[in-house]
């Protein structure tokens, strides 16, 4: 197992946002976490990324307990996340957005050498821009990109840190249906070509079904099911949660 959580919990006061979740992912797999809004997906995700520290339980990465490692420490270990709300460097060029992220693996404190003089880093940046289809936009200021392009840039920034495991938080948020299809293909392609391990968060069940190796369903902070996409679609409890049949009376 590349990454594992054992009985991980996160409480905000009395609210059990994530409650006793066991999760694991193998090297090279694409696993999705789905659930209705407020199910605890993003909180769980942030327990893995390091933004939150678990109230109880453990997060293990490559056999090491990283429960209390900070976000930048985890990033240096190879756990990198993207944001649900686009988070880029708006006034920097597209190229610089990705290059800066790649720089985190090379140099933080060199104050004399020219930043653009590291050819390996520049090459890597161009490769990533080609992977996410932004190579011809490299000179533009990031804030000028379209919404869909910004989402790709977001993925590009994450890829530049050479992650072992990539955490994608609703990468298709705000995209049109056509863009969404394109984006899901890109994610699958990245997973195949770069042998990346990906954890994908989605609330739209249809996005993940075609591309995931496995799916975990969260509901009210608890794990409801974890299985292959086919079995998840056939799972009655999951259908009830998503379609609101019986399990969740509306007038609670």
């Amino acid at each position, binding site marked *: 197992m590349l990454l594992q959580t054992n009985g991980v919990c996160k409480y905000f006061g009395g609210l059990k946002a994530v409650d006793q979740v066991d999760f694991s992912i193998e090297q090279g797999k694409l696993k999705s976490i789905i659930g209705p809004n407020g199910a605890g997906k993003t909180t769980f995700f942030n327990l893995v*990324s390091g933004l939150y520290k678990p109230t109880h339980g453990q997060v293990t990465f490559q056999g090491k307990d990283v429960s209390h490692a900070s*976000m*930048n420490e985890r*990033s*240096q270990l190879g756990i*990198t*996340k993207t*944001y649900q709300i686009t*988070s*880029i*460097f*708006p*006034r*920097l*060029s597209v*190229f*610089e957005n990705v*290059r*800066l*992220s790649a*720089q*985190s*693996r*090379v*140099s*933080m*404190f*060199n*104050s*004399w*050498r*020219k*930043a*653009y003089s*590291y*050819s*390996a880093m*520049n*090459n890597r*940046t*161009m*490769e990533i821009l*080609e992977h996410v289809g932004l*190579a011809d936009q*490299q*000179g533009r200021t990031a804030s000028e990109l379209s919404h869909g392009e910004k989402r790709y840039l977001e993925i590009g*920034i994450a890829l*530049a*840190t050479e992650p072992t495991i990539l955490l994608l938080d609703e990468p298709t948020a705000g995209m049109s249906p056509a863009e969404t299809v394109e984006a899901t293909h890109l994610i699958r392609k990245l997973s195949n070509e770069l042998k990346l391990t990906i954890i994908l968060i989605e609330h739209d069940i249809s996005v993940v079904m075609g591309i995931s190796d496995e799916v975990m369903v969260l509901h009210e902070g608890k794990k409801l099911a974890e299985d292959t996409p086919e079995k998840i679609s056939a799972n009655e409890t999951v259908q009830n949660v998503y379609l609101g049949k019986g399990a969740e009376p509306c007038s609670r």
Partner: protein
Amino acid sequence: MNAKKQTNEVAAYKPHSWQTALEFRAMWAVLALGIVLPFLVSKPLATEIMIYALFALAFNLLLGHTGMISFGHAGYLGVGSYAGAMVVFYGGVGVWVSLLAAMAGGALVAAVVGLLAVKRKGAYFAMISLAIAQMLYFLALSPFKRWTEGEDSLKLPPLSVDFPFHLNLSDQTQLYFFVFVIVALAVLAQWRLLNSPFGHALKGIRENEDRIRACGFNITRIKFLSIIYSGLFSGLAGGLLAIYLGAASVTTLFWMTSGVVVMQTVLGGTHTFMGPFIGTMVFLYLRNNISNYTDRWEMWVGAMFMALILLFPEGIWGTVMQKIGERRRPSAS
């Protein structure tokens, strides 16, 4: 060689933006202007412009480039000034050593501020830096009066430089060019700093602190080092100020100094490299001229500051660059 080959294989990249190219030219233009400046305005004013411009650039390392607002830069300038003056006054050392001591003094205060406040953001960082600077002001004013001479200022003997050639710093022209060369070198060093991997990381912090942390950067250490650099260059400006004034004075440490540098920087444009330099030139030129006509110069300078900020919301140089950018956009592919 191998690295060069690789470059050709991947699609060409052109990382330098037009802004960087323009700023680079503006930097040389302003430095070229520096050569003729003492013949356009009075030599003391020209010297003062150079020193405060360096101070404003150092201040903007934090405000414009890292995105941290400091209201305590008087502390770095003032301690730099005292450190530089004291080693001359009590140690009898030369001007070069004095400038090194000034830089060390500025950096030392910056290290203290950094240790106490680096994890604080926005107004909290500003207030802690202001509090430390004010403490230093009152320390210099009375408890340390025995060493600082308090309100009387620590007066220096006439100074000269013998290396690499003889300069008499009591001569206004020689003093100006001495200051100018050091400021020019410091400006070039800051340019280099901001275009290094470290400098780019600073911009990343300014643009999106959360994101750059998620990329794996150690924000706290980078910010700490950025405060040190800012203190170092501010200290150097303080050392030059002591040489120019022939004294280290407590007014340098007063909070007004911290306020004026904010005005100069904002006037020129915080999101630019040369903005603070240009802002300082305009500010000191206006102040100097207006104070020839009226004792109430603060009021007029204040009014003009407001008018200029309304006209140039991004600062003088910042707004010029913005307008150039807008003009370029339709034609840009």
